[in-house]
């Protein structure tokens, strides 16, 4: 029994496809999954793989012919099967026509009616998993709500659409699922009404996002993080919300308290003329970006810190009981803000052995992985010194908290054009404040100031790298 090759379902609103090119000739042996034919619809060209191993025994539709989805376009014989055993009750004009005919551009009408009926051919299932709006009326159950796209869930969260409200939205997606456009359309209508879905489920008000200590099955809409705006309280609703700490928030809280309780936090400040680094970055960003590496200021800060740490090793250490552990490796942590997900400080390993471009690539990688929850345990362990850049959010100065058990942290900030005096003249220079938070138990003020000055100096005069590196 030959296997029918049919034009598979190509999308909900796609009724027909054009045979663009046969990749195999009649009589060719084909392996399973090997591309047989290209079908084109609109501006998309789709390769149709062979559903099984065998021989392409008959090509029924020539290139350039447009046929309805579900139309049989070829037959495949399993290995060992004899050709022509079953004539294959061919239907319609095109299947009678061999490859050579019908070169002229297609008039799809004649093929239409008869073959549309043949759509759910048995072989079809083997090509493409059946789908489409078979469940018709588009009701979305709560169970299906879990399959909503992130975009839909986000809009639900932002607009305060409860899961119960979903059921009144007519879904046009797969299996009647509510799509982004459905939801936006619904919201456009709902906007006219002030109340939130009062009509749809009078017995069930909008769920108040106050999950108790027992983590019941929260609707996906309210599973937001710590700071994300929750369902907007309806008029007369609660004016406060109780949101339990996430696991990350608990850890941050514990670490901060431990840091402030153990280390004798002290801060001092300096400033750096960033002209040279700004120029370097301006020149090299596009060049490196063209090579796929995004260059930020962070690699420069890391580089300068590592060189200064080598000169002042005491700053690159850890307090253990009544001992000071000085480290001869340089794993530099960088604080990554993650909006509602909470701060995290992954570190870059062995920064003294990496060039600026490597650092740039790794900074990007580490930051994106931090934001996407893709950090490995190793990424946040074993740091020796940290840098925090409050400047990315606009700060021009800060007194950062030490990432204990480290003994110091460098704060870098927004680079601002400021009037400074050079050779008796007032000139505009890109200036940056730098700060250091240090544990005064082990790092004396003199050491901290000298270290910070050296970092600033290395930023101001990159040529010093020749002498220090």
């Amino acid at each position, binding site marked *: 029994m030959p296997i029918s090759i049919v034009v598979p379902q190509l999308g909900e609103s796609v009724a027909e496809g054009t045979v663009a090119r046969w990749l195999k000739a009649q009589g060719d042996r084909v392996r399973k999954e090997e591309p047989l034919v290209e079908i084109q619809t609109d501006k998309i*060209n789709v390769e149709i793989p062979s559903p099984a191993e065998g021989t392409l025994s008959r090509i029924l539709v020539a290139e350039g012919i447009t046929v309805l989805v579900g139309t049989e376009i070829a037959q495949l014989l399993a290995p060992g099967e004899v050709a022509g055993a079953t004539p294959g009750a061919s239907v319609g004009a095109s299947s009678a026509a061999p490859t050579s005919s019908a070169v002229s551009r297609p008039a799809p009408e004649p093929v239409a009616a008869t073959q549309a009926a043949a759509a759910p051919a048995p072989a079809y299932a083997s090509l493409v998993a059946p789908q489409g709006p078979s469940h018709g009326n588009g009701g979305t159950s709560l169970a299906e709500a879990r399959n909503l796209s992130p975009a839909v869930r986000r809009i639900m969260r932002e607009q305060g659409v409860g899961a119960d409200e979903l059921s009144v939205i007519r879904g046009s997606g797969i299996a009647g699922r509510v799509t982004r456009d459905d939801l936006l359309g619904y919201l456009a209508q709902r906007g006219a009404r002030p109340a939130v879905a009062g009509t749809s489920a009078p017995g069930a008000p909008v769920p108040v996002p106050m999950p108790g200590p027992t983590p019941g099955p929260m609707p996906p809409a309210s599973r937001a993080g710590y700071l994300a705006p929750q369902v907007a309280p309806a008029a007369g609703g609660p004016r406060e919300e109780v949101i339990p700490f996430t696991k990350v928030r608990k850890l941050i809280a514990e670490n901060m308290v431990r840091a402030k309780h153990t280390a004798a936090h002290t801060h001092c400040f300096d400033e750096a003329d960033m002209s040279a680094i700004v120029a370097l970055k301006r020149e090299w960003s596009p060049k490196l970006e063209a090579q796929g590496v995004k260059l930020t200021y962070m690699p420069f800060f890391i580089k300068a810190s590592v060189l200064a740490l080598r000169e002042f090793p005491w700053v690159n250490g850890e307090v253990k009981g009544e001992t000071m552990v000085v480290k001869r490796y340089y794993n530099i942590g960088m604080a990554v803000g993650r909006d509602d997900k909470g701060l995290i400080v992954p570190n870059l390993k062995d920064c003294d052995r990496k060039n600026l471009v490597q650092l740039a690539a790794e900074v990007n990688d580490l930051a994106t992985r931090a934001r996407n929850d893709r950090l490995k345990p190793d990424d946040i362990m074993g740091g020796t010194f940290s840098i925090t850049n409050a400047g990315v959010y606009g700060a021009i100065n800060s007194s950062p908290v030490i990432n204990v058990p480290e003994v110091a942290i460098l704060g870098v900030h927004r680079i601002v054009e400021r009037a400074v005096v050079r050779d008796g003249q007032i000139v505009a220079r890109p200036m940056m404040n730098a700060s250091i938070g240090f544990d005064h138990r082990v790092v004396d003020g003199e050491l901290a100031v000298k270290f910070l000055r050296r970092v600033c100096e290395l930023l101001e005069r990159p040529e010093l790298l020749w002498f220090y590196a």
Partner: protein
Amino acid sequence: MTTLSVAHLGPTAYRDGLALQESLVRARAEGGAGDWLLYPDHPPVLTVGRSGSPGSLRSDPETLRRLGIEVFEVARGGDFTWHGPGQLVGYVICDLSKRGRDLRRFLRDLEGCLISALGEWGLAGEAVPGRTGVWVGGEKIASLGVAVRRWVSYHGFALNVAPDLGFFDLIHPCGLRGIQMTSLASKLGPAAPTLAEAREVVARNLAERLGHPAWRWETADEARRQAGVATTDMREPVRAALNHR
């Protein structure tokens, strides 16, 4: 749905871009890679898709040779088009099995992403039924052409940021006669975004439109690595940047 990885490939011969896409499509189909948006910088090139007709080419081979323009026939939908400097070409490697295998919706999503990007620059882009692409005031600003293999898409879109529109006179773009091409630069003048800005905005809109919760910049090396193509070490970018001058 996972993160959309985005890489700027930098200067890329058309042939190399195609090879990388095909490797990445294979890796995507076999689960070795995620969804990708690749931005190649192609030298001027003409490509013709599966619905190309010889009549769409308005210039003779001699002219093309003189201009150093190669012509490629590719397994994507659509007719003739031009790619080259000043144009934002985006290859979209996306597993459509995870998106209901709905080709038309995918095309509409690509159009939608470009339209919302144009909106951010204050331009009202529109899709014209039956004429896939993105139009601004009756002029075409972006072309689309997609191929699908093992339900993974490749090729994608070409948004005219600031190309020399004269190149389009070599062809009847997309096989359409009397069509006027335009660009962000012609519409916005000095306010037009740079290619780097356009990359960022389009990537963000694409991730949103395709329902990715996040997107991130990756290096071209990472794209090659996931595609199973040999990568270079990190000194290579520096060397290439130096040679670039």
